[in-house]
Structure formats: structure tokens, C-alpha cells
């Protein structure tokens, strides 16, 4: 007993201050990329050619990058001879609409208003959101960093968000994975079992676009192929802070100072 209490005292308080305080992120984190097509060498398509998932479109004087397909690897930045693509430490990578994940040139950002649910839905779920997690044809990386939000570090419960054991208890689904053909029916049935109104959150490149498995006949190419998606959180896998930011932004619970601009 004393041993346990002593350990409790020594292990201390570990819950992070985010979103009220800025998050602590690794210095090498590959967050939202920036594109600078003015640096592009004539007719060069090295980045697009190197991209494993076809996330980049390179035309003369124009670059576009689909965060929903991006694996946040270093293949494009290594291939580019001119430094036209580089990663930033920007962790805010969520969007309500699929097309908002496509970055154009440098000035683009994920507009904050587009990340929140409409007011009526927010009024319903804003202070209590119960999610059923469906893992469907991924690598278990997203699942791991979705799960970690339940630890004392992130303490998801303090925001009224909780993963629940039954779709009947849920307000929505959190889907990871490219949705394998073998999970299609299970995902659909789970969605149908959630009482309306309900929301669907797609976490990670797989659930948004198929990720590394884009084009495989064994997968459906993301959650959107089976159920309507209300929030996309990009990454492969997204950092837990990115997932938490996405969830909180959707509920309009990010303090103004930390909203994406």
C-alpha cells in the first residue's frame, strides 16, 4: 500500500496542458508541408514521380499536395532538387471537407471555421461525444495513436469524449484503415447500428484515401467509400496531438489562440 502511494507521489501529474497550452512536439516532426512552386526547376516533376501515393500534382509553376494521400515520408523532399517542398511542424491537419485537404501553394491553410460542426450538431455533441472505433484494414499505427488519447497524458475524458464498447452507445464512428473488402460489411453494419444523428471521423491516410494501399483491389480506398465522413484527420499515422486537435476543433473547443489560421 505504501509502495503504491509512494509511486503515485513520484510519478506525479502527467496530463498535458493542451489545448490551453501549446503542445510539445518532436523537433523532427513532419507536420503540414509547405509548397513553393516558385523554386521549381523547369518542367520538373521529381516530387510527383517520387511520391508513393500520387499525392502530389506538379505542373509548370504550380504544385498541389493532397494531405489525405500524404504519408508524410521524405520521398518528395529528398527528390526535389530545389527545396520546393518542405515539412513544417504544423500539427493541425484536419478538415471537414475532403477537398480542403488539398494544399495549393504556400498560402493555403485549413480554414478554422471549416473544421467545426454546425451549431445544432455541436450543441448535441459538444460536451459529450461517445465514439465507437472501427479498425478496418490498416497497420494498427493510427489505432495506437487513437488509443493513446485515453491515457493520463491526453486524458480524453476531460473533454467529454470517450470510446465506447457498443455502436448503440455511440454518437458516431472513428474509422481507421483503408477499409478492406473483408471489413466493408462490418463497417456498414456498425454504422447502421449507431442511432442518428451520427458523425463519422476518418483518421489517417488509409481511412481518407487508402493511404499506402491506394489502388489495391483488396481495399475500398477509405471510409468514404462506405459511410459519409464528417471529419478527416490527415497523417500516417497522425500524431496524437493532431488527432486531439482535430476532434476538439470539430467541437469548436480549441481556444482562439490555438486555432489554425
Amino acid at each position, binding site marked *: 500500500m505504501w*509502495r*503504491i502511494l509512494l*509511486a*503515485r507521489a*513520484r*510519478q506525479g501529474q*502527467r496530463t498535458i496542458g493542451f489545448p490551453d497550452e501549446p503542445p510539445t512536439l*518532436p*523537433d*523532427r*516532426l*513532419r507536420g503540414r508541408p509547405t509548397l513553393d512552386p516558385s523554386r521549381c526547376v523547369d518542367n520538373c516533376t521529381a516530387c510527383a514521380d*517520387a*511520391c*508513393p*501515393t500520387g499525392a502530389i500534382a506538379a505542373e509548370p509553376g504550380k504544385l498541389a499536395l493532397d494531405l489525405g494521400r500524404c*504519408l*508524410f*515520408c*521524405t520521398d518528395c523532399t529528398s527528390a526535389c532538387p530545389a527545396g520546393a517542398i518542405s515539412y513544417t511542424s504544423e500539427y493541425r491537419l484536419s478538415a471537414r471537407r475532403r477537398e480542403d485537404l488539398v494544399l495549393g501553394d504556400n498560402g493555403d491553410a485549413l480554414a478554422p471555421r471549416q473544421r467545426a460542426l454546425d451549431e445544432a450538431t455541436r450543441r448535441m455533441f459538444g460536451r459529450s461525444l461517445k465514439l*465507437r*472505433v*472501427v*479498425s*478496418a*484494414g*490498416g*497497420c*494498427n*499505427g493510427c*489505432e*495506437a*495513436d*487513437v*488509443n*493513446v488519447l*485515453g*491515457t*493520463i*497524458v491526453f486524458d480524453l475524458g476531460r473533454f467529454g469524449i470517450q470510446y465506447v*464498447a457498443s*455502436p448503440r452507445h455511440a454518437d458516431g464512428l472513428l474509422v481507421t*484503415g*483503408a477499409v*478492406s*473488402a*473483408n*471489413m466493408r*460489411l*462490418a463497417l456498414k453494419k*456498425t454504422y447502421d447500428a449507431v442511432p442518428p444523428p451520427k458523425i463519422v471521423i476518418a483518421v489517417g491516410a488509409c481511412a481518407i484515401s487508402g493511404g*499506402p*494501399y491506394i489502388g*489495391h*483491389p*483488396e*481495399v475500398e480506398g477509405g471510409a468514404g467509400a462506405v459511410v459519409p465522413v464528417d471529419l478527416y484527420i490527415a497523417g500516417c*499515422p497522425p*500524431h*496524437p496531438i493532431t488527432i486531439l486537435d482535430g476532434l476538439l476543433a470539430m467541437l469548436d473547443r480549441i481556444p482562439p489562440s490555438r486555432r489554425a489560421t
Partner: protein
Amino acid sequence: MKALLAIPNASAVALDAVPQLAPDAFRLSLVTGVDAGLRISALFARPVDDRLELVAVLADDRAGLLRCARTALGDELESLVPSCPQVHLFEREIAEQWGVRVVGHPWLKPVRFEPPRRGGPAAPIGITDYFTIDGEEVHEVAVGPVHAGVIEPGHFRFQCHGEIVMHLEISLGYQHRGVERALVGGPNKRSIHYAETLAGDTTIGHTTAYCELVEALAGGRAVPRAYALRGIALELERLANHTGDLGALAGDVGFLPTASYCGRLRGDFLNLTAQLCGSRFGRGFVRPGGVGFDVEPARVTEMHDRITAASRDVAEAAGLLWPTGSVMARFEEVGRVTGEQARTLGLVGPAARACGLRRDVRKTHPAGIFQLVHLPMSTVESGDVFARAYVRWLEIERSVEYIRTQLHELPRGPIRRELAAPRGAMFAATLVEGWRGEICHVAITDDAGRFAAYKVVDPSFHNWTGLAIALRDQQISDFPLCNKSFNLSYCGYDL
């Protein structure tokens, strides 16, 4: 057994050098090899023109060698399972992928409900003849594929008498995304990303195996500094997962202090990997010829300090488990697998070491940095949940010491070198001791140096049957605990 070609781990030979045995000689070699203590690390079929070829890689732990052979395969294969049970799943896989009739297999059913490799529809997922038990007061409990937590999908059927599980059947395939199939024809720009996502929690382990193959096929090596850094990353991966598992085991018996602390500490180890390469799971770190990121002296110091702090907290958190009666009452003599069962089934990794088997690729088949730096092997005899937990704790201690020392003994020099293209008509095999156990990758190149075959064997492929055996005669309420004590991969199995 003498008919098999012996090669060192993580090496390549000309495909012609791998003996093409007659089917009977092939079978005899496998059976006598396994009788003599060898293990089946991989057994798979591959198409050669319009025919099939069966390829075997056996691990000889005593000699530290891989023993390989191949044989022609027709439409029918006489099952080896009656004399060599550990091939049971490999044969099921061959039947499912290539439509081969396996004669005499006692348990022939789909492995992952995947489309046959030579065309045609997949068997509908989950539809198969499940093992059932009839009788008064016998009932069946079916769970999954969607589970009650943040867990990968899988289907479990328990045949119960009251609270006692007489049999558990595990039916997977829900994570099947065609990743092993898609590796064939590479290496290409997706290959390394396939390797990194074979099992996301084992990114370093699987990517190391992939890179060792590509290096061997190219006739090259990674640079010394990269070998050392890969070793650090591999042990960090082990630390994160073992720590998380101890926490989850504590959670499953309702002992919240260790569950809470280890949940946080797992993240501290993942964050150390992120400090190396920006990704908590090691994405972008292991690359053919070396690694993608270097560590400067300041980073070494910071990593050393952070691992020291985290290891002190893990020691305290794990140390709460063993003297706590309510924990030990649930850990001891629950989910027992005997050494004999583990040997018969071909279990690997901590699950095998918890049954007293000395199976650790870092020790028996060292490649890379482990040829120079030796980690002691950790074993426990009792084969129960306690043993699987305690083996993890012993390995945490050793991995911490390893990393703390290695951080200060990094060889100087570049972190990556250019490799030649893979040579044509080669055969390469590698074993890596991931945190779950032996990861086996095998590649065969065509004349142009492309992968004509690529086989991935995740440790979970060997170990899922171990979980089914561990559940026999246990209370169904102990399933979560037993399951967590194995903590196997669905995606690594489903591929």
C-alpha cells in the same frame, strides 16, 4: 536435413544454389530437420512459369544458420502436419493462395479469406466450418470482427462449458489489404512503405528485415553507424511495446497504478523514436543502405537523459506488479502453455521464451549490430501470463542498458550508402527479432532483379495458435488477459 542449403542470416545466394529436391526428399528434410530441433521460419509457394514451386526456410538455432530448399509443387500436396504440426498454417495459406489441394491436413480452412493469387473470388469473409462442441450446457460465444475497444478486427469463437473455455477458434483476415502480394514486382517507390506498414507497431522490425534483404540482394551492406542506430531503434520499439503491454496487463486485472503509469511511459519511449526520426513509430528511419536520420551529440545526450528517466519510472511501475497479491493471483497459472506445446507449435518471441525456450534471433542468428553486441536472452519457465509479463520486464531492463551503452558507442561515419540494384535470379532470407518475436522475410528475384516472390512471416503467424492453446480450460473472463499477454498482430498476420 543435409539436403538443405545452409546460409547465414540476412544473406543472399544465387537461386540456382538453393537445392531443388524431389518432393519426397523435400518432405523428409523438413520432418527430420524439425525433429532435430530446426524451426519452420517460412514455407510458401510461388509461381514459376505456369507451375508452382514450394520454398522452405528453416531456422537452425544451434548452428546459427538458415537452411533452405525448394521443390516442384503440383495441384496436390500431401500434408506434413501429421508429422510436423508447426506447418499447419503455412499449408492452409498455400491452399488458400494457390488453390493447391492439401491432402491429410486436419484443419484446412481459410487463413485470411484473400482472393486466390491465380485469379477468382475470395471466400466470403468469416464463412467457414467452425469447430463446434455439442452437449448439454455447452454454449458458444462469438465476438468480433468489431471489438469493444480500440482493437484491430478479428473473429473469436469460444466453445464453453459454463465459464470454462474448452476451445477457442480464431478466424482472421479482416485486415487483409494485399500488401504481401503488392510487394511482388518491386522494389519500387511503394515497397519501403509497404514494409513500414506490414505492422505499424513493428515498423522498425519489419523495415529492418526488408532493408537487410535489399542490401543482401544488391551484394552490399549498410554502413556501420546505421547498424548501430537501427539496433537502438529496434530496442526502443521493444521498450515501447513491452511497457505498453505491462500496463495493459495491469489494466486487465484492474490494477490501475501500473496501467496508468505504463500507458504514459509507453508514449515516452515512442517519443524517443520520434526524437530520432520525427515519427513515433519510426517511419522514415530505416532505409536501404543505412538510416534516414543521424543523431548529433546534443541529441545523444538528451536521449540518454530521457531514457534514464523513463526507465526509472518503468522500474517503479512494473515493480508494483510482482509483490501485489491481487495481481499475481490473476497472472500465475493462468493461460499456461507448456514448453512442449510451444515447441510443437513453433512459437517465437517472448511467448516462446516464457515457456523456457531459448529462441531469440538476436542471440541465435545475429545480424547487423547484434553480431558485435550481445544481449543476454531472457527466459522464464512457467509459460503462464506471469511468465509472459516477466519476460517482458526482463527484456525492458536489458534493452534500456543496451541503448544507454550504445548511444555512446556509435561508430563514426556516414549514415547511409548508395546500393547497387538488386541482382537477378537471387534468393535472400532474413530473420529479425522484433518485439513480438521472429520476423522472417524471404525474397526471390527474377532475371531483372525484381521481386519474383516476397514472403513475409510476422511472429503473430506462429503465435496465434499459442493463444488458442493457452485458453483451453481457462475461464472465459480470462480471455482479455491471456490475449493481452500475447498481444499479437492482426495486420501482420492478415497482410
